[in-house]
């Protein structure tokens, strides 16, 4: 199991080097995206002025505060608490996010499904599992909110974060069809009968 330090953005070759079970630390830039952001981008035809090519997006909607604009807070918005949300709801947006916007890495919790796994294989991408509910810690990996687009959707805007030492986080789905969630799903299905027998359920 290798550890990778990835200064974002990356290319197809770099993302295909990631294997499920590896760990990753991201540097420089990370984008925040969520349900409403993607509904507006892919169902309602809205576009972003951000170039997401080769970048990572995290499924998030942050807590922020308004502050005076300065070098540390270029758009006058400071991070308060930034973590992640359940990815599965955004399953159908993985492929358009990769095809139209060129995104290579998706970060979230709980995993994505079969369509995403296929898109990661076809186009070259990976899903990284960050620990859900550990936002106080993850906020310390974010240096600043550099910019924000589609901000009428706040807090589900499209955010550009400057990051430092964002990780280690786990490669949970890779570009080779590998998925840690599939393995766990198979294990749970195999343990179901014994669990029910332990509960005295007639089967």
């Amino acid at each position, binding site marked *: 199991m290798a550890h990778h330090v990835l200064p974002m953005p990356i290319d197809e070759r770099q993302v295909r080097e990631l294997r499920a079970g590896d760990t990753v630390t991201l540097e420089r830039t990370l984008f925040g995206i969520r349900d*409403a952001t993607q509904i507006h981008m892919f169902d309602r035809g809205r576009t972003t002025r951000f170039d997401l090519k080769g970048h990572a997006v995290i499924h*998030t*909607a*942050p*807590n*922020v*505060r308004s502050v005076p604009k300065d070098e540390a807070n270029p758009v006058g918005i400071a991070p*308060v*608490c*930034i*973590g*992640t*949300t*359940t990815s*599965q*709801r955004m399953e159908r947006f993985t492929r358009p996010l990769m095809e139209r916007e060129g995104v290579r890495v998706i970060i979230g*919790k*709980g*995993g994505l499904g079969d369509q995403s796994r296929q898109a990661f294989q076809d186009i070259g991408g990976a899903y990284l*599992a960050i*620990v*859900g*509910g*550990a*936002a*106080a*810690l*993850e*906020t*310390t990996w974010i240096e600043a909110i550099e910019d924000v687009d589609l901000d009428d959707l*706040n*807090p589900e805007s499209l955010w550009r974060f400057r990051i430092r030492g964002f990780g280690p986080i*786990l490669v*949970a789905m890779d570009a080779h069809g590998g998925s*840690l*969630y599939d*393995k*766990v*799903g198979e*294990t*749970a*299905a195999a*343990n*179901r009968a*014994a*669990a*029910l027998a*332990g*509960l*005295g*359920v*007639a089967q």
Partner: protein
Amino acid sequence: MTTVLTDQFELDYRTIEETAKELYIRALKILPPQVKRGFERLQRDETDGTAKTILGTMVENIAVAERTRNLLCQDTGIPIYNVVVGRDVRLDGVALKEALRRGAERATREHPLRSSVVHPITRINEQTSCGRGIPVINVDFDNAPRQIRIEMIPKGSGSENGSFLQMLIPAQGIDGIKTFVIDKVIELGGRVCPPTIVGVGVGGTSDVCMHLAKVAATRPLGSACEDPEGEKLEKMLSIAVNSLGIGPQGLGGRGTSFAVHVETAATHITMNPVAVNIQCHSARRASAVISADDIEYGF
């Protein structure tokens, strides 16, 4: 008939508003000690390497939140206030509800917090954490003299989306209930931010059953169902869910849940309802007991 009662505790709604605001922020920042002990127990029992690392990160996060006085989780949730009014308390119920709502709005604006609440059809966010029917306010009564207890639960959506109701039939019996719970825990996997508290409602009508599941999921960790039959069931299910191998964040391991909590209500001869509602590992709650001369904060 009018009775003049001289020895009554009369609520001050500014105090209620301040307390409602304080409770929302406290709940988001300080995890109850029972949940911290729950993490210690899961860490002791865990054998999977990835699961140990994830539990370690969650425990580190609790310390970082306390040290930096930050929110534990980015999800500020749907605000729920459970109010229990004691004996000899004089109150205006409408003023009480308005004060609780103002408290939630002020916490959101003044901290500031992310407003996670939108209109269900327009999806417009008023940026107040409130909206039509939100905050959820439940009012009950007990025998405690001259006091009011307010419990605040910011209910996160990742786990709330793991909610199910099934109107089973009597012929499916208790086996049907057990199977339903196990199958839902498997289906949800890592989506509900395990290790979880699995709340199970058994009996009642459809709405009562779902509410029981929420009460069970948000009850303090370590508490037991008052119905001995419910307690027996929750003990069995608590062992069973951690034999499935789903683990913290659904990435494998033993620690799928801190516990399964069950709440029960009597039901109809033709019915056998079961409901599931999940609480995530950030099992946040805060409470305050307000009396004439004191406000005592707790969990």
